[in-house]
């Protein structure tokens, strides 16, 4: 069953673009990575799905229900962690969490304490006294305490130290293992690579690619590094080779095509070193941005 189904969703803020003609779907239990640079429309998409803003055209369904007409019902099973967290400054952490829990009509106390323990959250401090990272922790607990079926994470690890980031990732994986569907928006590709099964790449408001993270890495480019004395970049001018860069007697380039042709070419040369590797998502990503 598709948990999220977005069809030709478009949002303009007056004349300025939010997103244009975005379509994708996410299956139950999936972790879908949504990658793009700042201002590409990641947050706009999430806000549309939460009906914080209303679409200019197109439609979006969550749990099979239209977001504009069934908002409150849908949001009962959604957890949302915004990229920038802001809470009522005068409140204590524990009061905010209780207020948050009071919307779901069930007892969330136990889960709330479990999560706060994992996140090492000090429950009796005032929100206004918290650092950015600590507010983020409040956000994570607040987003998870009612055991949602779908999680929207908008750059969830920004502001957290590496140790905490790992804890948070473990937490998300554990949630996912329980069957929670996760929509993960980020511009940090390493994160997405670690967590997601499928990714959508958004750029200037449009989806440029949706694919399996493996196929994205495999069926695409190989990154080739060749070291030899007196190498001429022109040697590698053959179909499928792009981005040739020379550096200290080493050539780096991307190759897409018949790998045998490349091997034949390489074996004809006298090399001191060669590596052929899968490009990181980062590098694939940069390719989409060119």
């Amino acid at each position, binding site marked *: 069953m598709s948990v999220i189904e977005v069809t030709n969703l478009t949002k303009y*803020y007056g004349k300025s673009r939010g997103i244009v003609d975005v379509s994708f779907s996410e299956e139950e239990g999936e972790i879908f990575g949504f990658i793009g640079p700042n201002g590409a429309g990641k*947050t*706009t998409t999430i*806000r549309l799905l*939460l*009906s*914080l*803003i*209303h679409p200019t055209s197109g439609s979006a369904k969550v749990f099979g229900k239209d977001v504009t007409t069934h*908002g*409150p*019902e*849908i*949001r*009962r099973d*959604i957890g*949302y962690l*915004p*990229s*920038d967290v*802001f*809470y*009522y*400054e*005068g409140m204590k952490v524990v009061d905010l969490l209780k*207020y*948050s829990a*009071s*919307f*779901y009509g069930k007892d969330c106390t136990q889960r709330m304490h479990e999560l706060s323990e994992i996140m090492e959250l000090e429950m009796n401090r005032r929100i206004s006294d918290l650092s950015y990272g600590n507010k983020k922790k409040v956000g994570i607990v*607040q987003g998870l305490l009612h055991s949602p079926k779908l999680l929207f994470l908008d750059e969830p690890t920004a502001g957290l130290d590496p140790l905490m980031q790992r804890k948070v990732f473990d937490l998300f994986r554990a949630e996912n293992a329980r069957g929670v569907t996760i929509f993960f928006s980020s511009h940090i590709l390493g994160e997405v690579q670690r967590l997601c099964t499928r990714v959508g790449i958004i750029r200037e408001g449009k989806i440029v690619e949706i694919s399996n993270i493996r196929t994205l890495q495999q069926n695409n480019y190989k990154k080739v590094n060749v070291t030899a004395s007196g190498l001429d970049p022109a040697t590698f001018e053959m179909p499928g080779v792009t981005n040739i860069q020379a550096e200290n007697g080493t050539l780096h380039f991307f190759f897409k095509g018949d790998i045998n042709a490349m091997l034949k070419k390489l074996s004809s040369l006298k090399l001191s070193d060669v590596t052929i590797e899968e490009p990181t998502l980062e590098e694939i990503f940069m390719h989409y941005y060119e």
Partner: protein
Amino acid sequence: MSANIYIHEFRTRLKSVIIWSLSLTFLLVFYFSLFPVFADQAALMNEFLARYPQQLRAAFGMDNMDMSTVLGFYSFIFLFVQLCLAIQASNYGFGLVSIEESELTADFLLSKPVSRAQVLTSKLLAALTSLTITNLVVWVSSFAAISLFRGEHEYEPGTLILLLLSIVIFQLFFLSVGLVISLLVKRVRSVTPYALGLGFGAYVLSAFSGIFKDVKLELITPFKHIDPAYIVLHGAYDTPLVLLNAAVTLVALAVSYWLYIRRDIPAVS
């Protein structure tokens, strides 16, 4: 209505309600304690006032007031009570949804499983409760001040009750007009200037309308819709104007719901 939002909203405004209520009590009791002096020197006082240009007296709404009677004097103070109530109610109206947006907590609230209409209704009822507390405090301190300082002077309690009953209509006007303006402008960065502007603006319009008798400014300012001097003089409301006031309130509320349900909540920028 969501009880949790209602309670949360009410709590955040509690301190403000207490401060407004205490200030109004102080204002009423302090000024009314001067009444015996005015009443004893009634002839002198009225003669003194008569020397001011008629326009100036009109600007302060004093042209129809007899400062030597209990209600005449009270209606003069009541004008300032109205001004305070106007600023308080506008303040709550402007801040009702805009504070959540400027402090960016709207995302938290509206990503919860509640509809926009529920949110707005809960917030409105919470604000109304806060205003009603202030309202009740004004009732109590008015009766207290009058019975403490009126001495031998008699007054018509029915007219006083009529004056005090007008408060809720007055508050609702500023609450809902403040709210609708806050939803019509793109973003309210700070609530206080707007609230002071609306409260004082309406008051100044009413003062002008006193000076230029032929200008129909009374149609747009609640200080004229519910004019304490008129109520004391006639022992009744100016019914068409009160109805006009209530109509504006209802339209403002309806438009507010319409706008808020369709509103795009601004993101962090």
